[in-house]
């Protein structure tokens, strides 16, 4: 009995406030826009169920797939999320590796310093980069000391890469560190004793053993980056299309809620596979830890 209360409360909460909202999004994506408040035709009208089903159609989806504005935004998001995940991995790996080799008593402190930026506001950290990257910003001020012409980075896709790598770096470092820290040094010594050069030991022993951490880190960066809104909006300017920004402007500027819902449903379908893989990876790691 008590067991069912413990399970029931969080289960019920998540069903009502996490799962059911998705079903509503899906339903509304099938309805038509109306210029009322709320700006869509009512979805549930039990008195007239037949009219309700007749009113549902895939019009919004047809529109999204026929308009290059939306398909380009999906492609651009995929591309930007993929490239920045790769960049984050390349930058995070040596940092996590160095942390794992640091003296034991320093490691908790180093971990805390990686986590600390995660606790400060995302918005503020992205904002900090505007001051650095903009035309008359601190980076160009610094470069002018060396006679280098001002660079145009703010309001380009490069600023978006920098923003994503910077904001999500802790999410990559922590799982990498966790898997590297567990690595048994005897394995590395054994490889060395058998005459393996360091780079070969790295690729044949260290890296394969850190794969669970690499996977977890990549999912933690890739999935949220796909739907990112703040970074492309503040750093990418009007030229950078990303689907999170498109959804935002459909919702807030055009007030087309059904279309915004359809955009969200397609994004969700694109993310289902990585989310399921992420979950499985987490579960495997938990079971391995037992």
């Amino acid at each position, binding site marked *: 009995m008590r067991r069912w209360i413990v399970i029931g409360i969080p289960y019920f909460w998540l069903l009502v406030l996490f799962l059911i909202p998705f079903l*509503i999004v899906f339903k509304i994506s099938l309805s038509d826009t109306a210029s009322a408040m709320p700006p869509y035709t009512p979805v549930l009208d039990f008195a007239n169920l037949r009219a309700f089903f007749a009113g549902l159609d895939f019009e919004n989806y047809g529109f999204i797939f026929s308009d290059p504005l939306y398909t380009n935004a999906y492609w651009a998001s995929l591309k930007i999320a993929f490239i920045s995940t790769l960049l984050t991995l390349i930058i995070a790996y040596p940092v996590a590796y160095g942390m794992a080799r640091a003296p034991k008593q320093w490691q908790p402190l180093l971990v805390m*310093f990686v986590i600390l*930026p995660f*606790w*400060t506001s995302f918005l503020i950290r992205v904002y900090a980069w505007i001051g650095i990257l903009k035309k008359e910003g601190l980076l160009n001020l610094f470069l002018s000391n060396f006679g280098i012409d001002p660079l145009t980075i703010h309001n380009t896709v490069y600023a978006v890469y920098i923003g994503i790598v910077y904001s999500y770096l802790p999410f990559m470092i922590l799982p990498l560190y966790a898997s590297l820290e567990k690595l048994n040094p005897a394995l590395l010594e054994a490889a060395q004793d058998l005459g393996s050069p360091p780079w070969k030991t790295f690729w044949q022993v260290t890296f394969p053993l850190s794969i669970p951490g690499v996977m977890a880190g990549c999912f*933690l960066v890739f999935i949220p980056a796909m739907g990112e809104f703040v970074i492309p909006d503040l750093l990418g300017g009007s030229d950078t299309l990303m689907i999170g920004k498109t959804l935002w402007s459909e919702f807030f500027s055009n007030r087309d809620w059904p279309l915004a819902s359809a955009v969200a449903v397609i994004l969700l379908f694109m993310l289902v596979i990585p989310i399921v893989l*992420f979950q499985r990876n987490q579960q495997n790691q938990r079971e391995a830890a037992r």
Partner: protein
Amino acid sequence: MKGRMTWFNVTSVALGFAFLYIPILLLVIYSFNDSKLVTVWGGWSTRWYAGLLNNEELMKAAWVTLRVAVVSSTIATVLGLLAAIVLTRMNRFPGRTLFSGMVFAPLVMPEVITGLSLLLLFVAVGFDRGFWTLTLAHTTLTMCFAAVVIQARLYDFDKSVEEAAMDLGASPLKSFMQVTLPIIAPSVISAWLLAFTLSLDDFVIASFTTGPGATTLPMKIYSQVRLGVTPEINAISTLMIGVVALGVIVAALSQKRAMVRQQAETRAVDAGAK
């Protein structure tokens, strides 16, 4: 893994940390800039901070943000604790896979999707948008983070002490409250702090789920950021960073003290047993 740190290791850690901290550091330094122009250093000044306190709208937004953060993180910690117990202690019940999916999915779900879906729920059931819808939304997101933090602690928890309490006649509830909870308390506190700061910092979900009269501080910051970089925004940002940093440091210190005390107790028990 341990071993000697090579120069390459030291340099990569140093560069990584420099990359993480220099932007924040610059932002903090320039909040004390006397000049209105962000790139021109006009000497030290705290005048932007004084201006903030007189900005009534900003103070109102800060108050809303703080209230939402306290209420939502408190509910979220309780729910997260329950969810963590379910994830670690209850292995077989119908729908377990769905449950763990619902706990982990919000961690990576793009915020625009979570925000939109919650808003559509509130509209569908006719819930007026404002303080409470925002609080419910933040509770839902942050309880998942709280659950992950607490379950990590419950996994390496020595269950035998709990079993000992039950063998001595304590009910499962009593043994949990009097034995387990005090031991995992530091992780519960860090779960609360994490939930609190996530709520404090959230901008995207808040924009979807709040209503007139409940504008939050990040929303105010965003609308000003769109107009350009100003020392005032640097000043609010610095204050927010300061509050969070203080909280984290206090939590870390108290956790360390709890650990030292625990070790001392264990030593005393060991000494008594000899």
